[in-house]
């Protein structure tokens, strides 16, 4: 008995120490994912916080409410230090190259006022959403002024339209997309010459049935005083290599807070995962509860995107198919946690999160688990299914409960015509569609192999029965003849 208790204590203490292993990076990080059944299941951390960078450590003076972050194609890092109305340009080793805090416009000294968004094109043009000056400013790489794009002018603008550009992005054709504060008509699109063309990709209005009922009962005067049904505005945007726009909305309890817009403004995000990309699936209700609220999104070159949840300080990463890959990050006071995370960017395999209130950037390094997942997703995106499957096997070695990995391996097996094994993996990954595909092939295979045998067996049986009957009839006939012969 005492032995048993001792053993129990040992097991318990092991379990507890396993749960609370201190991580050297300040805050302990444990990841999770959502299973097929929509339950949060523990997973190894995919990213762990590494360096924390602030203005003082860079030797350029403390940041003051920095709000946006950008990494260009040459891996230069741009920080939009809004409170100090300046842009800090750094190389990948975090050495400041240039600080832009003013520029000459038509011979006049000019400054930003509360700028909120920054974007840098492939050829180094810096676009800044200069919010309180109600304009987009384009600067050259050396910080000199190129042009400015003012408020849109058009007949289609509704009355009382106020233009406060918050976020900006520029595609390969130099079209400029702007997220405006309180603009629910969609993204504001300017052509390459800075002329307003249209609104694109407006969010749909979500109507509450109960609200609709009350509204239908009320009089016109009452109705006018009620809140209007208006679509939600975007909170941020990013462009992928194909020129598609990824947007986030800060709507609560939305099922589609992340969208991928094509040039005609239609959402074409792939939602092939167990659940549509929406951040947390399980959350509490009430004043502090509710779903994840996305503030920023970052898309990488192989279609993987990470969205930043400002409420819980979590970063949700999805594959281009919409599978939830991993979740990390949290709100807190230790190093490696956030207070008000507002921007996320990727540089190589690292992830950077900008904190507006702590005035610092936290750099996250992938763990072995995170690296394997990234690798597997990249290889699959590039069409190298077999190598991808090998990376997934690596993932499974660290986390056997990682359902998507089974699907990844299953796909590779299916390609190799190893249908029966593929079926097993798809079942573990709970993918009915792929399991059905594998099963269809497997069934055909079995039928092809065994049909001959089956038919031979069946015809032999029929023959046997016929012979038996024939013999029986003959015998009966003989018996009858015998009986009749002896009266």
């Amino acid at each position, binding site marked *: 008995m005492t032995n048993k208790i001792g053993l129990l204590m040992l097991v318990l203490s092991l379990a507890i120490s396993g749960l609370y292993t201190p991580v050297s990076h300040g805050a302990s990080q444990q990841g999770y994912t959502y299973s097929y*059944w929509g339950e949060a299941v523990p997973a190894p951390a995919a990213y762990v916080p590494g360096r924390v960078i602030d203005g003082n450590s860079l030797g350029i003076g403390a940041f003051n409410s920095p709000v946006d972050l950008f990494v260009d194609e040459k891996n230069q890092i741009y920080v939009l230090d809004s409170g100090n109305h300046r842009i800090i340009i750094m190389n990948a080793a975090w050495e400041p190259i240039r600080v832009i805090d003013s520029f000459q416009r038509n011979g006049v000294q000019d400054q930003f006022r509360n700028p909120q968004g920054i974007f840098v094109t492939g050829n180094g043009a810096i676009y800044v959403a200069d919010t309180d000056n109600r304009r987009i400013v384009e600067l050259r790489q050396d910080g000199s002024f190129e042009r400015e794009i003012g408020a849109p002018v058009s007949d289609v603008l509704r009355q009382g339209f106020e233009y406060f550009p918050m976020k900006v992005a520029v595609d390969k054709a130099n079209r400029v997309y702007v997220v405006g504060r309180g603009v629910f008509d969609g993204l504001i699109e300017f052509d390459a010459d800075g002329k307003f063309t249209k609104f694109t990709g407006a969010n749909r209005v979500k109507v509450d049935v109960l609200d609709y009922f009350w509204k239908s009962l009320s009089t016109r005067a009452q109705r006018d005083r009620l809140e209007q049904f208006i679509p939600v505005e975007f909170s941020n945007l990013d462009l992928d290599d194909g020129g598609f726009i990824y947007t986030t909305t800060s709507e609560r309890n939305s099922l589609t807070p992340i969208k991928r817009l094509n040039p005609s403004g239609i959402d074409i995000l792939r939602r092939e995962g167990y659940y549509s990309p929406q951040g947390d699936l399980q959350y509490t209700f009430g004043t502090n509860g509710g779903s994840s609220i996305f503030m920023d999104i970052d898309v990488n070159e192989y279609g993987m995107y990470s969205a930043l949840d400002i409420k819980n300080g979590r970063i949700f990463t999805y594959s281009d198919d919409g599978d939830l890959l991993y979740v990390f990050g949290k709100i807190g006071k230790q190093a490696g946690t956030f207070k008000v995370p507002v921007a996320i960017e990727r540089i190589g395999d690292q992830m950077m999160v900008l904190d507006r209130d702590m005035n610092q950037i936290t750099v996250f390094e992938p763990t072995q688990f995170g690296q394997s997942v990234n690798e597997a997703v990249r290889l699959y995106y590039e069409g190298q299914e077999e190598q991808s499957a090998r990376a997934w096997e690596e993932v499974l070695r660290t986390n056997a409960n990682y359902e998507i990995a089974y699907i990844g391996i299953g796909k590779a097996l299916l390609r190799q015509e190893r249908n029966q094994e593929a079926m097993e993996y798809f*079942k573990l990954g709970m993918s*009915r*569609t792929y*399991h*059905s*595909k594998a*099963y*269809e092939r497997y*069934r055909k295979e079995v039928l092809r192999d065994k049909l001959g045998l089956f038919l031979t067996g069946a015809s032999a049986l029929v023959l046997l029965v016929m012979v038996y009957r024939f013999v029986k009839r003959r015998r009966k006939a003989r018996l009858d003849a015998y009986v009749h012969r002896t009266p």
Partner: protein
Amino acid sequence: MSIELLKYPLYVIFHPFNGFWELKNENKGKLAIALSLLFMLAISNIIKRQMAGFHVNFNRPSELNSLDELKFVVLPFLLWCVANWSLTTLMDGEGKFRDIVIATGYSLVPLVLIYIPITIISNFITLKEAPFYYLFESIALLWFIYLLFVGTMNAHQYTAGKTVITMLLTLIVMGIIVFLGLLFFSLVQQIVNFVSTIYYEIIFRV
């Protein structure tokens, strides 16, 4: 028990009007058979939920509980019978409680007959062929409802319209019974709570 009695349910489902008539008026129905049909349905329902092929089975194996499944078949059956009896007693129904149980029990035959084969077949179909599975499932259900309709009509000697109304009302009465049951349990709970509180008060103070 003669083989005739065991074959009779099959006759009823294919010739419901004659079948149910003879069930009631020529004493061909046996309560034991009706109840064993109910038991068989419970079993086949458990088998179906547990063993149906991956493509059509959306149950979480760790959440399946055979006793719960039993509850979900037997309880509605009894509720239906009680509700129907309570209602038809007031609505000039001729059926006795026994007749209702037998008619309802014999109507379950299509469900019992179809569930097992489709469970077996569902293990050999792809997702594309899954609609056939659902088709047969719906056929079983519709057939059952039709038999229940004919059975009720026969048991109480109602017209078709009155039968439909009675059946709908029975559903409502089932709801009311469940509601009353919950209310009763909640009240009992409160009383128990009250008594135990008084008991503890006395214990602590005296």
